[in-house]
């Protein structure tokens, strides 16, 4: 039974469709793993055990009677606890929402269910997806941060308690935890995945994202999640390509733009050496590597991002913060206060800089298939009071372009390294195909040492 939880979502979905694997058995395996592992990992905020088993039984019958509902038929997934789930508590890691049970599900959650996915429950996140840590621990080393804000999702996927998770990124909330936990993390373009029915951090930055065990699984999930939603004014109406077909169809080596400036200045020595090794490996497999300069001063981009996120977050929380300031964690409280004193002119200047950055970046990205950088300046830092450094992931969220973490190895202490690839706006198909090629060339398959249960 153990092998079931080690398959990818794509392979598992194929087995389910052909009748070789029961969704009920699969859900039972995942629930058993959660029961065994989650006392120490604390990746799950809520587990909907009965509902998940009922859905699995219904999907098993449906498959026999009418065939598969969609490409994720019978696949157990997790949902970050900022997405509304009808009838299931959505707490966003906050005392303020501890009793909040939405009456409807977010559009993205509905898309997963309509594709046949089984929502096992809600994954833990930092408070309101900001900076006060979740209780989650890193499955590679319990004394190290799993990153954030999608802390539980990354740990849940790494620990094989589910196959895919639905997440959000405002700065580095998907890619950083993905890197720290050795899983694939995809942040598509801003507007690609509906955010209708999510608790926001910063409206003009929040982007739906995905964590999975492989690039192929991320592509499969994106195909289900992408698409226009009239309920979300930021949602793009661009057509959704065949992501899985594109990545399988590409075999020629990509052209990658390596950005050293800013990244190599801030990465520690072992991350710099690791990135050099990754680049050499990709080059020897046939990739063309071009050294590129960042299209803007990324320190300035960081300052601009902070002006936007602080201001918008303060605006969202203004009323509640006035009424119940004591119910906010210290880091979020400070973020809101700093937002309240940020001048409107600075906010507008930040948004103007954002436009210029996006335009310059388009020029850079027109010359390559993807930019390549380390995802984080270090592997997961020790301690659980912080969630790590967002500076390496944040510029691409600010520009609204897609980015993906590809696990690329382990350091000497057994913690995962991640490599970040960045693509052109709404060119997720090209980015995923590039990431798939790199994943194959690197041939890294990571599983944390969890004192494995036998299922």
């Amino acid at each position, binding site marked *: 039974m153990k092998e079931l939880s080690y398959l990818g979502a794509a392979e598992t979905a194929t087995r389910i469709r052909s009748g070789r694997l029961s969704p009920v058995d699969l859900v039972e395996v995942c629930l058993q793993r959660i029961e065994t592992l989650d006392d120490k990992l604390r990746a799950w905020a809520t587990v909907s055990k009965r509902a998940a088993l009922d859905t699995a039984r219904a999907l098993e019958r449906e498959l026999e009677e009418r065939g598969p509902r969609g490409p994720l038929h019978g696949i157990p997934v997790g949902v970050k606890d900022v997405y509304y789930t009808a009838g299931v508590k959505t707490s966003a890691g906050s005392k303020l929402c501890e009793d909040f049970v939405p009456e409807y599900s977010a559009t993205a959650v509905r898309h997963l269910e309509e594709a046949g996915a089984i929502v096992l429950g809600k994954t833990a996140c930092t408070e309101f997806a900001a900076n006060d840590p979740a209780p989650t621990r890193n499955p590679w080393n319990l004394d190290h941060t799993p990153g954030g804000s999608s802390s539980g999702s990354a740990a849940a996927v790494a620990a094989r308690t589910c196959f895919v998770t639905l997440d959000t990124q405002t700065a580095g909330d998907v890619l950083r935890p993905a890197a720290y936990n050795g899983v694939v993390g995809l942040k598509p373009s*801003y*507007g690609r995945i509906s955010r209708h029915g999510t608790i926001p951090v910063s409206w*003009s*930055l929040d982007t739906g994202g995905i964590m999975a065990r492989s690039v192929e699984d991320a592509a499969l999930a994106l195909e289900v999640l992408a698409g226009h939603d009239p309920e979300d*004014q*930021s*949602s*793009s*109406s*661009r057509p959704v390509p065949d992501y899985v077909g594109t990545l399988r169809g590409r075999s020629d080596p990509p052209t990658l733009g390596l950005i050293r400036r800013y990244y190599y200045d801030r990465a520690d020595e072992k991350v710099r050496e690791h990135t050099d090794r990754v680049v050499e490996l990709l080059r020897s497999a046939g990739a063309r590597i071009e050294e590129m300069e960042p299209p803007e001063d990324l*320190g*300035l981009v*960081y*300052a*601009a991002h*902070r*002006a936007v996120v*602080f201001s918008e977050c303060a605006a969202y929380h203004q009323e509640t913060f006035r009424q119940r300031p004591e119910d906010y964690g210290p880091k979020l409280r*400070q973020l809101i*206060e*700093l937002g*309240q*004193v*940020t*001048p409107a*002119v*600075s906010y*507008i*200047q*930040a*948004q*103007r*800089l*954002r*436009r*210029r950055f*996006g335009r310059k970046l388009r020029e850079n990205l027109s010359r390559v298939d993807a930019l390549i950088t380390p995802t984080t300046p270090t592997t997961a830092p020790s301690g659980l009071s912080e969630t790590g450094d967002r500076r390496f992931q944040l510029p691409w969220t600010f520009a*609204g372009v897609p980015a993906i973490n590809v696990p690329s190895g382990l350091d000497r202490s057994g913690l995962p390294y991640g490599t970040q690839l960045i693509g052109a706006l709404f060119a997720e198909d090209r980015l995923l195909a590039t990431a798939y090629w790199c994943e194959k060339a690197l041939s890294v398959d990571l599983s944390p040492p969890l004192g494995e249960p036998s299922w």
Partner: protein
Amino acid sequence: MAGGTKEELTNALVRQAVELFGQERANELRPSLEKRAEQLWLLDQALLDRDEEPAVMFFP
């Protein structure tokens, strides 16, 4: 406030923090306000073309 030196920006942020949150909290926030002022100053130095409009992230 915009267009000032780092020190002027810090003082302006601190004044506002005192007004909104009181002296004690403003004192606690001082290191973060200084960091914010540094970032806002950096943003002030960005030479943006006069025609550059703010990003509109809501796609039609």
